[in-house]
Each structure stands twice: as C-alpha cells, then as structure tokens.
C-alpha cells in the first residue's frame, strides 16, 4: 500500500515536471508557432535567477515566484524584439537563430558563472510514508504545475486578453482588421511564455540544480511533448506530458533512469508515426 502510494507520487511528479518544463513552450510554440530552440536556456536562466538571488539573501519564494519569471520575461521581450520579429515567421531561420541563441546563452553562463553545478536545498524537508521517505517539495512541484495549467486555461478561456490572444492565433489578419494590435499581442504572448519557462526553471532548480548546459536536457523533451500534444496547445501538452511522464517513469522504475529517458523519446517517435498531427490533431479538437 505504502509502495503504491510512493510509486503513484513519483509518477505524478514525473508528469508534473514534464508539463512544467513544457508549458512555456506550449504558449510560445504551441500557440504562437515560434520555434524557440533556446527554450531550455530560458529554463536555465530562470534557475540561475532563482539560485543567485536566493543565494544573495532574497526571500526564497520572492526569488522563485517573482524574480525568476520577471528576469526570463524580460529576456523573452528582448529576444522577441531583436531576433524573432526580424525573421518574420521564417521557420528554418527561426530554428537556427534560436539555436544560436541557445549556444550563446550557454557560453555566456559558462563564462560568467563557470561550468559547475549550483543549487538550493529543497525547502520543507521530508515526510515519512510507511518505510519510505519523500520530499514535501515533490507535492509543491505537483501543486504549482496544476495551478499554472488551470490559471492559464482560465485566463485563455474567460478573460478578454485571453480572447484577444486566441483570436490572434486563429486568424491574425482578421484580428488586426477588427482593431487588435496583433504585433503587441504576439510580443506579450511570447513574454508570457518566457516568464512561465522562467518559473519552471526556478521551481525545478532545487531538485535538479542548475548548470550552464542543463537546458539541453529540457529542450528536446519539451518540444516532443508540445509537438505530440498537437494543435490545441494546452490540453495537448498536458495529455502528452501525462503519457510520456508515465512511460518514462515506469521504464525508469523497472530499469534505470537512462532507460526512462530513452523510452520517452522512442514512444514519442512511434506516436508521431501513428498520429503525425499529435494527440489533439485527432482527439479533443474542441479543447484549448
């Protein structure tokens, strides 16, 4: 019984982390269709913003929930303004430019901060379930993920700003014709996605630590999750995160963590062979 509970928690945590690293990309790529290969580095910058400001004596929660999203949001604003907007939707050029940006950020972080791992001990301590010990922070990660996804969903579904964003994504010209400032809406959406990535990087930092190259471990998983999710970004990403989180964690349980990573990638490749337009390309089309 205890074992089942612990295993269940681990599975939930795996799903939540995957959803968390993907949610910013779900906004930027899933909705805006901007391919941001520097997504992993956005998470990395968020992690550093949190770890460094917490290390400088700032309140832990202020650093995690405010400073990290704000810093990465600003970075996103600059990137959108200086790079993404200049390329005007040229897919290949955007892939390459953001990849260059990703290398640049890795190099910058390494030059300024060095190639060693930094971290903050997970707050809250641990809890005993039968003979198993589990960090309370695990519950926090699951809770934050659920909150972020619900809030994003509600905002998109019921707020006027969310309506404008959805309208711009669905038909930019029509939205512009109706008087929406689509350039600003796109920019703001990109900043929102960046800020969410910053938050994710900060929330995961106490567990994973931060180092300049950590983005590489996130970016492919995030892309695979969002792509496999398909056309309706938020629902699709959540579903795909659930599927892949389960698969990889289950594989990691029966074998080793590395097998879990590989299982995720293999399942994703096979899934795209069966459903080339992603999960929501066929099911749940009416969702968000």
């Amino acid at each position, binding site marked *: 019984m205890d074992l089942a509970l612990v295993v269940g928690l681990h599975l939930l945590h795996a799903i939540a982390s995957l959803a968390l690293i993907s949610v910013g990309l779900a906004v930027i790529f899933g909705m805006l269709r901007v391919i941001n290969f520097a997504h992993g580095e956005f998470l990395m910058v968020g992690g550093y913003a949190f770890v460094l400001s917490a290390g400088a004596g700032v309140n832990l929660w202020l650093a995690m929930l405010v400073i990290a999203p704000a810093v990465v949001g600003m970075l996103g604003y600059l990137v959108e303004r200086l790079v993404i907007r200049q390329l005007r939707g040229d897919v290949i*050029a955007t892939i390459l430019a953001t990849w260059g940006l990703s290398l640049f950020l890795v190099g910058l972080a390494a030059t300024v901060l060095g190639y060693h791992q930094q971290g903050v001990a997970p707050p809250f301590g641990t809890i005993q379930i039968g003979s198993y010990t589990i960090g309370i922070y695990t519950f926090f990660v699951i809770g934050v993920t659920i909150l972020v996804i619900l809030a994003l969903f509600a905002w998109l579904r019921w707020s006027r700003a969310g309506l404008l964003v959805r309208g711009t994504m669905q038909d930019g010209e029509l939205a512009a014709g109706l008087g929406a400032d689509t350039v600003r809406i796109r920019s703001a959406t990109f900043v929102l996605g960046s800020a969410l990535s910053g938050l994710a990087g900060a929330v995961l930092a106490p567990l994973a630590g931060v180092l300049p190259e950590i983005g590489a471990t996130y970016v492919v998983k995030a892309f695979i999750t969002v792509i496999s999710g398909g056309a309706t970004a938020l629902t699709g990403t959540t579903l795909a995160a659930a599927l892949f989180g389960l698969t990889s964690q289950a594989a990691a349980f029966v074998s080793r963590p590395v097998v879990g990573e590989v299982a995720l990638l293999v399942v994703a490749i096979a899934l795209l062979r069966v459903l080339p337009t992603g999960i929501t390309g066929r099911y749940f089309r009416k969702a968000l």
Partner: protein
Amino acid sequence: MNWLRDRTGLLGAGVAGAVLIAVVPAATEVYVQFELTLFLIFAILALSLAWVWGFGGILSFGQSAFFGLGAYTFAVAVINLGESTLPILLGVLVPALLAGLLGYFLFWRRISDVYLAVITLAVSLIFYYLIGASAGSQYRIGAALLGGYNGIPSVPPINVPGAPEQPLVYGDLYILTAIVLAIVYGGLRWLLATDFGRVVVAIRENEERAQLLGYDVRMRKLAVFVIGGGIAGLAGVLFAAWGAYVSPNVFSMTFTAQIIVWVLVGGLGTLSGAVIGCVLVQAVMTWLGEAKLADTNLVLGAGFVLLVLFARRGLVPGLRDLLARIRPPGRDPR
C-alpha cells in the same frame, strides 16, 4: 550536362582537389597533415548535410547520429576483427540502414520540418544517453568495451585492405581522406546531374508539384536520406581511425550545431560552400580554442545568430552573386 557546363566551379574544385591530394603532402609537415585530416573529415560530414538539407530539403539534426554510429561501428568492428576493410564497410552500411529505418518513420507520413528536426535530434540524444550509460565491463560487444562517457580508446588504424600488418600512418590517412572527400564531392555532383538528382531538387522546390507530376516523393527523399547517412557514417569511420578514439560527445547538441553552422556559413544549396565553410569555421574554432580568448559556445552561438539575421545566404552564394555582377551580362554562371 549541367555539372560540366559550370566550368568555373568544376575547375576550382579540380584544382583544389589536386592541391589537396598532390601538393599538400609534399609541401607540409606530418603534424600539419594530421590537423588537416580532421578538417577534411569534417568537410565530408558537412557535405552529407549539404546534400540532405541543401538539395534534399531535409533539415536533419541527426547527421551527428550517423557520424557517431559510423565511428562506433567501425571502432567496435575493427577491435573485434583486427582488420579494417569490413569494418569500414559496416561503418557506412549501419548508419545508412538506420537512416533508412528513420526515413520510413519520417517520410511515409507528411511530417513537417519542425517535427523532422525534433525527431532527428531525439535520435542523436538517444545515442548520447545510451552510449553514455554503457560504462562498466558488462557493456561490451565482443572484445570492445563501450566505456560510457569515457569512450573507446586505442581504436586500431585503417590498414591496407587484407594486410593488417600494414597500417596507414598519418600521411597516408591524410591522402586517403583527401581522396574520399574528392570522391564524395564528385559523386554528389554527378548524382545531382542525373535524372534522380534533378527530381530531388524539384521535390525541394515544390514537393506537391513533383508528386502531382507522378514522382514518388517518399522513395526519393528516403534515398537522399540514406545516402546522406552513409556519407556521414563514412566520415565517422575516418574520425575514429584518425584519433584512435571515439566518445559519446559526437552525439552531443554542440556537435550537431557545428555541422549546421558549417553548411550555413558556406551557403545552403552548394556543395563547395559546405567544404569551405567547414574548414573556415574549424580553423577559427581551433584558433579560439588555442588562444583561449572566449568560450567556444559563446562565439559559435553569437556568430550563428548574426549569420541568420544578416547573411542568411552564406559565403559561396554571396560570391557567386558578386561574380555574376562582374561578368558581362547575358551569361548565367550557373
């Protein structure tokens, strides 16, 4: 014949090839040839991407997977067999097979550029994780220990076919690599001039139209991808033999990025550009690494962004435009 009509390019390539094969070995020290060999190996790898991406229109982030697989296949096979002829063949065939398998997943359903990019990237990462986790004596293929992130050391050199006691030393490996580069370059140019090559370019230009004209797009894309995978594998074989060493770093993101930079710097849609871009970028990187002025990622990344923003067409197409402007009008240099 299109490729014979373009005399300037062919002449240039011929002269460059002759210099590489005949003049350089006589005029330089062995150490210089050793360094140059690496550049030429990377140039072969760059050609594989120039072919797959520039002419086939397939942006593959997986060339490093084929390169690495070629290197590992060769290393494992040559350690087990003690003779290099069959391992070289395997080092080309195994990556080509993987490309075929992958291509079946990629081209039989209409998967967009982005999906393709991510899936090929995922394949590289799978290898990176799997081989990285193979440390320990239980992970061995025959006599070859895979060695995890430490890689496989002391890979035996390439030998004269059928005579393991006659290995190719540095100068010989240089000449072999230069010849392979020339053959790959010439072979690709020939392929582009055939009907097959023309259809491939037609598919790149407009896939739907090519399909409506009755060409089997999937088969041709698959063939392009398999050929590209084989060439990358061959470069990997030479790489493992060159350094007598191979590690999972050949599957890393940085290495994959480098291949794309080479092709972009030289100019997409050209073969000579890939070679020139590769040698130029590698020379700069080597110099940066030795001078320790800045982090290579920093420089590579910044160069990449600026290149995409301001010089998207690359060196060789830019030079061609310049040449076309200098020449009297009325003649198309292509």
